[in-house]
C-alpha cells in the first residue's frame, strides 16, 4: 500500500551527533558520533544496553534537548524544538492523572479545525485501536500499567505525526498484548505510511517489526552495527532468517563467545 503523495521530504538525518551532560561539574559523554539516516516510511529499531543513551537520542530527535555537537534534521529543516510532525511515546505513560482516559487521548489531537463531535469520534476510534473502549471515563490511576501505556500510544497516534518515536512502548505489557500491539503498530505503519523509530529491549520485537535494526554500544553510545531485515511481513518468528538475525544480534551483545550463545537460543 504505497501512499506516494508528493509530500515534503521527511527524511530524518542524524549527522555526527554528540551529546554530553554535566553531572557534578564533570562531563558525562552519552552519545558519540552517531550517524543515521532514516527514509520516509521506514521502520527502524534501536537496541542497546540500558543506559547507553537510547532515550537521550530520541529526545534529541524530538527537539526536547539540544545536541552538544552535530546536526539532526528532518528534510531540509534542522530540528531545534519540538514539532507536531514528530510524535513521541515516552518510556512511561505520562498521562494526566486528573483527566479521564478519553480526555487524555484527545489531548493528542493537534488539528484545531475539528469540531467537538469530530474530536470525540476520533478519540473513540483510537481508543478502540488500542483496545481501551469501555474505559473512556476511567482515570489513569484506575488502569493497569499496560493499559496506561496503551492510552499513551493512542495519544501519540491521534496527532497523526509523520515520524513516530517510540521509547520502549510495550515494555510494560504481557507477552500476548505485546504481540497484539506489535501487529497493531505494523498495521498502522503500513496504512499510514509513517516513519517509525522504536527503542526496544526485545530482540524478537525488533526483528519482527523493522526494516533495519540499529545496535548501539555501551555508553558512550555509538552505532555499533546496522542490520537490515529483508524478509516480507508478516514475519514468521520461527523462520530460519529470524533465528539467524537473532543469533547475530545476541552475538553483538555478548561478544564472540559462541559457547554461551547456543544456550540463550
Amino acid at each position, binding site marked *: 500500500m504505497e501512499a506516494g503523495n508528493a509530500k515534503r521530504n521527511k527524511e530524518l538525518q542524524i549527522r555526527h551527533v554528540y551529546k554530553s551532560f554535566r553531572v557534578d561539574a564533570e562531563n558525562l559523554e552519552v552519545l558519540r558520533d552517531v550517524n543515521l539516516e532514516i527514509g520516509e516510511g521506514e521502520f527502524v529499531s534501536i537496541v542497546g544496553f540500558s543506559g547507553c543513551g537510547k532515550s537521550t537520542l530520541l529526545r534529541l530527535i524530538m527537539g*526536547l534537548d539540544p545536541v552538544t555537537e552535530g546536526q539532526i534534521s528532518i528534510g531540509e529543516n534542522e530540528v531545534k524544538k*519540538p514539532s507536531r510532525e514528530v510524535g513521541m511515546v*515516552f518510556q512511561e505513560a505520562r498521562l*494526566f*492523572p486528573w483527566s479521564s482516559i478519553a480526555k487524555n487521548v484527545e489531548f493528542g489531537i493537534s488539528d484545531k479545525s475539528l469540531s467537538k463531535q469530530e474530536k470525540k469520534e476520533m478519540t473513540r476510534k483510537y481508543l478502540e485501536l488500542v483496545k481501551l473502549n469501555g474505559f473512556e471515563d476511567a482515570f489513569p*490511576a*484506575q488502569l493497569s500499567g499496560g493499559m496506561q501505556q496503551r492510552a499513551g500510544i493512542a495519544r501519540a497516534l491521534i*496527532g497523526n505525526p509523520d515520524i513516530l518515536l517510540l521509547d520502549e512502548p510495550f515494555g510494560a505489557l504481557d507477552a500476548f498484548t505485546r504481540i497484539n500491539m506489535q501487529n497493531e503498530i505494523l498495521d498502522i505503519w503500513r496504512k499510514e505510511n509513517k516513519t517509525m523509530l522504536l527503542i526496544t529491549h526485545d530482540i524478537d520485537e525488533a526483528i519482527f517489526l523493522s526494516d533495519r535494526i540499529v545496535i548501539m554500544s555501551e555508553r558512550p553510545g555509538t552505532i555499533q552495527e546496522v542490520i537490515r531485515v529483508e524478509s516480507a511481513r508478516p514475519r514468521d518468528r520461527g523462520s530460519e532468517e529470524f533465528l539467524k538475525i537473532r543469533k547475530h544480534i545476541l552475538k553483538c551483545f555478548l561478544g564472540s563467545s559462541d559457547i554461551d550463545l547456543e544456550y540463550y537460543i
Partner: protein
Amino acid sequence: MNKAKNKYLSFFQIIIAPVFVLLLWLAVTEAGVVNTNILPSPVKVVKTFGALIESGKLWKNLSTSFFRVLKGFALGAVSGIFIGTAMGLSGSMNKILSSLVGILRPIPMIAWIPMLILWLGIGEKSKVAVIFIGTFWPVLLNTITGILSVDGKLLEVATVLEKSRLEVLGKVVMPSATPSIITGVRLGFGTAWTCVVAAEMIAASSGIGYMITYARELSQPDVVLAGVFTIGIVGLLIDAGLLRLQKKLLRWNYLRDERK
C-alpha cells in the same frame, strides 16, 4: 459484619477524647472543686447556649461575623490565587515579590489591626481587611507551591504536542496545582475565621467576637464559653464541608488511596 464493627470502633475513637473532657469538666464543677463563677458547669453553658439561640442573639452575631469572613475570604482567596499563579509561573515575578512576601508574611495578624483601624476606621472595612490578609497568605503560598510542583514530564507531553501557553496553563499547570490551591483555601478559611474573632474582640459592636468580649465585661463566663464553643464548632463544620467538597472535586487525587 467486620466492617460495621470497625465503623463503631472508629466512631468510638473519634468521640472518646471530647467525651472524657466533658465528663471531667462536669465532675469538677459538680463536686465544687472549682469556682463556678470562673468555670460554669457544662449544663449551665448548654442552657445559656439554648437561651442565646432562642433570643436570636447568637444567630445575629454569628451571621454578622460569617458575612465579614465571606467578604474578606473571597477577596483574599482570589488575590492569593492570582498573585500566586503569577509568582509560580514567572521567575522574575517571583524574584520581584518574594522579598516583600518574606518581610510581610511573618507579621502576626494582631499587629495589623491597630494600623488598619487607623486607616480604615472601626467599621466593616478594617475587619474585612484583616480577614483578607489572613486568607491571603496561606492561599498565596500554597498556590505558588502547587504551580511550581507541576511534573516536568507532563509538561514535556504538552511541549511535544506544541500546545499553546494558554492551553498548557489550563490543561496541565492549573489542574496539577489544584489540590495544593484547595488546601491553601481550606487553611485560608480557617485563618479567616480566627481573624474575624480577633478583630471583633479588639473593636466592634457586633459579631461573635464582640459577643464574647462584651460578656467578659459583664462577667458572664457561660456566655463567653458558649461563644468560644460556637467558634470551634462552626470552624469544624466549615472545614468538614470544604474537605468533602475537595474530595468530590478532586476524586482523581484520592484514587490511589481507594485502590489500597
